[in-house]
């Protein structure tokens, strides 16, 4: 294998994990774009979704089969969480929302810890080590599937937002909350739908990650900071930005892992994150305190 092949393989691998990052980030950016809040519980919900997929697997349901039902269940959970907890408890204050979602993440994460302990678990699927031969490298089948499904979800989400009435209502609320409510849109409902969509994205991501990744009550944290980075990088609230950002970060991580080793590879992401936050003009950020 030439060094070019290694590089190409690293880029390809980066794109594969980047697609799942993008999916996680899309959920986050969607919620930000509409509700204008950063959902600090995003990582914990991902952990919960991975445990749900894990339990389904224990019950004999393949993660890929569990994907659609879990997405629906998590949509419902997300809807309820926003409608019944975050919305009413925050009294509409941004700082409260910040703390409520943080509180929720602590609750979810530690309940998982209480129920499942801090053991690291993995599932053993028949196709776990299947590969596709691309000539210059082998591509793990589950990763290729993750890439494909993430792209499909992105397209479906785009259709939902662009074509359906609910999608139009979501976009209207994102642009102008007051105007939308004057036009008869139930803003609290749309907020909850958006939050539900974000959670559904996480459920799908969880099913895609399960065959190749481990499950742990804090597993979502590893992804959530990456997702924040992607969202900031791609522009807060922008879905195409989140997809492009996700792929980019996946590749950067893969390449810096290749050059500096695994543990410092993560560092690259945070450094990008901090730099982006600092360098982007203040008008885009922090304008809304």
């Amino acid at each position, binding site marked *: 294998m030439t060094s070019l092949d290694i590089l190409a393989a690293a880029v390809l691998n980066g794109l594969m994990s980047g697609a799942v990052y993008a999916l996680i980030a899309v959920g986050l950016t969607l919620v930000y774009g509409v509700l204008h809040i950063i959902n600090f519980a995003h990582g914990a919900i991902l952990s919960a979704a991975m445990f749900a997929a894990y339990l389904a697997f224990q019950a004999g349901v393949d993660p890929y089969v569990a994907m659609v039902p879990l997405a629906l269940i998590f949509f419902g959970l997300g809807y309820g969480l926003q409608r019944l907890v975050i919305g009413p408890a925050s009294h509409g204050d941004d700082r409260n929302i910040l703390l409520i979602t943080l*509180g929720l993440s602590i609750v979810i994460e530690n309940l998982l810890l209480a129920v499942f302990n801090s053991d690291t678990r993995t599932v053993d699927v028949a196709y776990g080590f299947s590969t596709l031969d691309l000539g210059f490298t082998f591509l793990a089948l589950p990763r290729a599937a993750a890439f494909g499904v993430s792209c499909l979800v992105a397209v479906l989400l785009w259709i939902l937002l662009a074509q359906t009435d609910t999608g139009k209502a979501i976009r209207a609320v994102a642009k102008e909350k007051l105007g939308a409510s004057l036009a008869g849109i139930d803003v609290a409902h749309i907020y909850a739908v958006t939050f539900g969509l974000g959670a559904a994205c996480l459920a799908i991501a969880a099913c895609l990650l399960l065959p190749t990744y481990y499950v742990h009550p804090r597993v979502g944290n590893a992804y959530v900071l990456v997702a924040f980075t992607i969202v900031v990088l791609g522009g807060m609230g922008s879905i195409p930005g989140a997809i492009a950002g996700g792929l980019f970060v996946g590749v950067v991580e893969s390449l810096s892992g290749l050059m500096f080793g695994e543990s410092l590879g993560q560092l690259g992401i945070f450094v990008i994150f*901090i730099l982006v936050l600092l360098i982007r003009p203040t008008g885009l950020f*922090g304008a809304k305190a």
Partner: protein
Amino acid sequence: MSVARAYGAIAIAALLLALLPVMVQSNTVINALVTAMIIALAAQGWNLLAGYGGQFSFGHAAFFGAGAYGNAILQTRYGINAYAAMLTATAIGAAVGAVIGYLSFRSGLRGSYFALITLAFAEVFRIIANATPFTGGAAGTLIKLQVSAANFQFASRAIYFWIILAIVTAVMFLMRGIERSRFGAYLVAVRENEDAAAALGVDTLDVKLKAIMLSAAMTALAGAFYVQYFLFVDSSIAFGTWISVEALLGPIIGGLGTVFGPLLGALALHFLGELAKAVAGRVLGIDLALFGILLVLIIAFARDGLQGLLTRLARLWRARRPA
């Protein structure tokens, strides 16, 4: 509030707490009290920046860790005396606060963005501390056990408790002083409305920088003391999210932007944590899950925390008593 009342309440609370080790001699209890006091100190730091200044950090672990590692490394690698090392570590914490504060506030980061960037800094430090030999890598750093007052190592846990209590008390006096100073008024003005504050001649960047430096110093001192007490530090203790979370839970539960809030909150949290363990047995995470629920409930129903709850109860009590 008269000056005597403003400071007297702190002195009385400190004296009552100081009696605890005399009454209860269980090592477990004193141990829990020392930990609660360390958290109260770290939380007071967070309270200064967030409760008074309105800048919500989710990464106070960055300062706690700077103090913890600073103290440990100065002693083990450079053979510096424990007292000097703790002071220097506190100053290092303040310097880290100055750098993070300068970068973030200069860029105009507020609200969620400030929370995010502080979180990211803490995480960067954790990864670096976990990977570099200078900090002992994943194995962490141990301070050699050499019990002697000259080394700030004591055989009795009660002594540690009295020292940390004295520090917490001193910091509460300082906070009361800040509350009653021009700096304190400016800090609260910045929290309430930065533009209006600037229009009235407040140098908002300067106020926020001073606040984050002082805040970081307090939290770093807590970290330095933590290491001195447990004689061990690794990356997940020093820069882990647990301390960022506990530092903010304390004041929010106790009373945001109040002098007593962090102490009340830290004590309440530890009491609650022990209670949870007593009831549910040693179930992992159950205490933190409860804290999280408490956090949500407090924000939903009692924005002013335990301190506010107590004040309201006292008012009710006075109203009910026949005149």
